[in-house]
């Protein structure tokens, strides 16, 4: 079992999927002036609120410390532990050095707490008493690397003391190694003290060595100590960069103000380098000391933290809140809302400020003046604000009969990014959304629509098949007696299809929605009583042109290359460095992420890409490798085959597997089978592959969505899609090499887009071979189950970030659509 702690309500793993475990540091009489003043005024409820606020801001565990001269620590701590135990979902960290206090708190606390902390300062007296209490009540323990000689400065001393503590806590008192969180101690690098110049490096090295020498133990740090003495804005950046380095060194948990962490991606490269110079004491030839350079660098920047750092707030609190939604800025939202609540009811704050702000954001998006990722950041502010207001709202106030919408991805389809974006936009515009998930059969949609008495239904699906599912299920909705509007969205839908093939099957309006904002528009039109089914006028409609040449003869004289083997093979542990450079960044930035140039000037767009988009991309590249999100695996092979009209008959494992491919109905009437020789022409060789980057990245993506990190959710999802395609592109290159048809193939990703190489890969489910049913025979002979890939009943591959293709070596093989 994974080492965990628990409150009355939930268990929390000490090793988070995305480290670190965040331990809120504000409920601390020593560290927080505000908390201390409330405690001194005996205002325990207000003290509890500080703990609750940190939980709302993302802290996984709350550190509680009431030790202060003149106070009765036992009374304060047991009172607060009692209050926190009932009110906090996050488990507690009992922060005290007094064994009596710790024992009293552990006896009282109804979950599994962490004790902060033990050390060897007194030569080993208190540590034994505290560890025995921890053993008795089942607590985890933070151990500081301090002994009679004082706080350990060097990595070697940190390790030595950790070993001594381990001997007492584990061998003597019976704790498990995984109950121990070693704190290697953080010292400021901002004091100018010559003995502390390498303090950050010693701490990071301490983490690495302790975790290597005492396997199973955990590492914790009080991160913000690193920057004592520096000015506040610079501190936030330095703390964030140091936290990132510490996690890379193996840190599991951080005692930190969760709200003050700046995402690495939003720290300018220049600022980040300056922080790293200071942390690693990097000298510049003929330059000043890193600390002096750091201070100089940030002194000119007072007030602006990261790119869009907090400026001096201007305007009324109402205007400030409106501006925060617009700029996607969550900082100090709680203070601002507290100020507003003194005068305005929470429900009015939502309806009169937040909803109009989101509406304005939607309008700007509609005009092409802001981009999707920024809209999502605004939605995050909206969500955070509503979450902070909810405790102050009456139940009746929240339920003000807002229009409600049921959302589902249709039966047989696992894709949920489109549906979830609609959910984000609608729910953060004040509507009630029931998002009932993926692969939902029509019967369930109908049942839930009736149960929740929704006003509208939204159906989503990416696959060509899903468009058909929608069309075929509409009569079912009609028969069930429904006539509320149904919104349809998905990549394979067109206004024509919705108007001509879907709308006639249903009694109410059926509306095509190109994106989440079209969905929002439809909901508004419904409220205004003027929503109508999508119509299609064939006279004014643009007929998409089928690309492709009009006349083409497929050459029959091309040689058949000699494959290195016949049959199937697995390849695992493919180094991401091999395929990540092939990511199509244009498609990622503009298509998946929505960083379109729109109305921006060339210079402004370049600044956006360099200042915002590239840092996000670089961070994802870094994290995906550092955190092991990519488990690239391939099953592939070469097989004898021959073409028979529109089919390619593949021989594998002594059996024949026919693959049928559709033929274009218009000139030049191409079909994939044309690129393979018939039996009469001597037969041919076909390549196949299934590649995956594994399930881990999908789990991360789901977690981000669940945590309302809308922006990061969109970023990671898009990244995972393009990383999978990059792996497919890379593997196609490997196969061209093996077949000896690589020539001087371009390593340039743009060359890959325009297929400037011999041969082609055709993905199953894509335009030239849309039939996912081909996965059945493909799975029979590529056997990808062994590398963790399975097939759903609807022939989709799981994990989602998996792709398959048939590889044709014919020099004329290029993409075309049927």
């Amino acid at each position, binding site marked *: 079992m994974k080492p965990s702690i628990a409150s009355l309500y939930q268990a929390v793993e000490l090793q988070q999927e995305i480290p670190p475990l965040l331990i809120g540091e504000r409920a601390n009489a020593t560290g927080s002036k505000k908390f201390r003043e409330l405690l001194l005024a005996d205002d325990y409820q207000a003290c509890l609120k500080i703990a609750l606020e940190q939980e709302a801001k993302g802290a996984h565990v709350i550190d509680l410390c009431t030790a202060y001269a003149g106070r009765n620590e036992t009374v304060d701590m047991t009172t607060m532990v009692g209050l926190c135990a009932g009110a906090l979902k996050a488990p507690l960290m009992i922060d005290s050095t007094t064994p009596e206090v710790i024992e009293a708190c552990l006896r009282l606390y109804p979950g599994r707490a962490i004790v902060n902390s033990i050390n060897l300062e007194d030569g080993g007296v208190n540590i034994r008493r505290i560890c025995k209490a921890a053993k008795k009540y089942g607590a985890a323990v933070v151990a500081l690397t301090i002994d009679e000689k004082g706080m350990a400065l060097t990595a070697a001393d940190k390790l030595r003391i950790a070993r001594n503590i381990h001997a007492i806590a584990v061998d003597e008192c019976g704790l498990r190694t995984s109950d121990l969180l070693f704190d290697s101690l953080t010292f400021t690098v901002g004091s100018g003290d010559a003995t502390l110049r390498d303090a950050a490096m010693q701490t990071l090295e301490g983490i690495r060595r302790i975790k290597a020498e005492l396997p199973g133990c955990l590492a914790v740090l009080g991160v913000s100590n690193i920057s004592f003495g520096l000015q506040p804005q610079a501190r936030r950046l330095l703390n964030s960069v140091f936290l990132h380095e510490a996690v890379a060194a193996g840190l599991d948990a951080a005692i930190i103000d969760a709200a003050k962490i700046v995402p690495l991606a939003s720290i300018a490269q220049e600022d980040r380098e300056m922080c790293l110079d200071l942390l690693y004491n990097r000298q510049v030839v003929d330059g000043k000391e890193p600390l002096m350079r750091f201070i100089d660098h940030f002194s000119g920047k007072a007030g602006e933290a990261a790119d869009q750092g907090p400026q001096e707030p201007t305007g009324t609190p109402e205007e400030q809140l409106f501006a925060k939604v617009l700029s996607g800025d969550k900082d100090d939202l709680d203070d601002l809302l507290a100020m507003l609540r003194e005068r305005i009811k929470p429900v009015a704050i939502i309806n009169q400020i937040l909803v109009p702000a989101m509406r304005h954001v939607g309008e700007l998006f509609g005009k092409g003046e802001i981009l999707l990722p920024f809209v999502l950041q605004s939605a995050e502010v909206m969500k955070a604000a509503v979450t902070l207001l909810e405790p102050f709202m009456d139940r009746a106030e929240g339920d003000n009969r807002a229009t409600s919408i049921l959302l589902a991805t249709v039966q047989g389809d696992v894709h949920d990014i489109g549906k979830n974006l609609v959910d984000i936009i609608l729910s953060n515009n004040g509507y009630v959304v029931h998002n009932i998930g993926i692969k939902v059969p029509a019967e369930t949609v109908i049942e839930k629509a009736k149960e929740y008495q929704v006003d509208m239904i939204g159906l989503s699906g990416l696959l060509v098949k899903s468009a058909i599912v929608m069309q075929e299920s509409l009569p079912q909705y009609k028969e069930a007696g429904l006539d509320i509007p149904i919104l349809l969205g998905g990549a394979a839908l067109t206004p024509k299809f919705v108007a001509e093939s879907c709308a006639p099957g249903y009694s109410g309006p059926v509306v095509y929605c190109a994106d989440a904002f079209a969905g929002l528009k439809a909901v508004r039109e419904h409220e205004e009583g003027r929503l109508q089914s999508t119509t299609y006028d064939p006279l004014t409609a643009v007929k998409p*042109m089928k690309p492709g040449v009009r006349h083409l003869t497929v050459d029959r004289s091309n040689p058949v290359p000699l494959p290195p083997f016949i049959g199937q093979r697995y390849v695992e542990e493919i180094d991401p460095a091999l395929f990540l450079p092939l990511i*199509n960044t244009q*498609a990622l930035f503009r298509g998946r992420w929505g960083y379109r140039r729109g109305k921006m000037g060339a210079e402004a767009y370049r600044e956006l890409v360099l200042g915002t988009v590239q840092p996000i991309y670089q961070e994802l590249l870094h994290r995906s490798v550092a955190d092991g999100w990519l488990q690239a695996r391939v099953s592939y092979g070469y097989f004898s085959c021959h073409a028979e009209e529109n089919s390619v008959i593949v021989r594998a494992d002594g059996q024949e597997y026919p693959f049928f491919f559709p033929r274009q109905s218009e000139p030049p009437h191409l079909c994939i089978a044309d690129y393979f020789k018939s039996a009469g022409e001597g037969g041919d060789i076909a390549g196949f592959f299934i590649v995956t980057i594994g399930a881990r990245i999908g789990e991360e993506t789901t977690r981000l969505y669940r945590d309302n990190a809308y922006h990061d959710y969109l970023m990671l999802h898009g990244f995972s899609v393009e990383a999978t395609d990059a792996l497919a592109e890379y593997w196609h290159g490997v196969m061209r090499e093996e077949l000896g048809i690589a020539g001087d193939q371009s390593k340039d990703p743009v060359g890959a887009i325009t297929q400037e190489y011999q041969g082609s890969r055709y993905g199953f489910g894509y335009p030239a071979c849309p039939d996912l049913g081909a996965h059945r025979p493909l799975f029979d002979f590529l056997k990808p189950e062994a590398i963790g890939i399975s097939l759903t009943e609807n022939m989709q591959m799981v994990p989602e970030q998996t792709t398959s293709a048939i590889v044709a070596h014919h020099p004329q093989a290029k993409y075309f659509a049927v």
Partner: protein
Amino acid sequence: MTSPKHTRYICANCGYIYDPAAGDPMNSISSGTSFETLPEEWVCPMCYASQDQFDVYDEE
């Protein structure tokens, strides 16, 4: 500043770049055709995205 006639456009969906200097001869679009004067039904030759999926693309 390049004149609009020579401005290249990029497909936001797949990254294909339409260059007026090259046109799209595979689809009977002759060299010298500006993006603005492409026939309405012209779509991205790589991924079939429609023209509203294209962004102005210039490196200078």
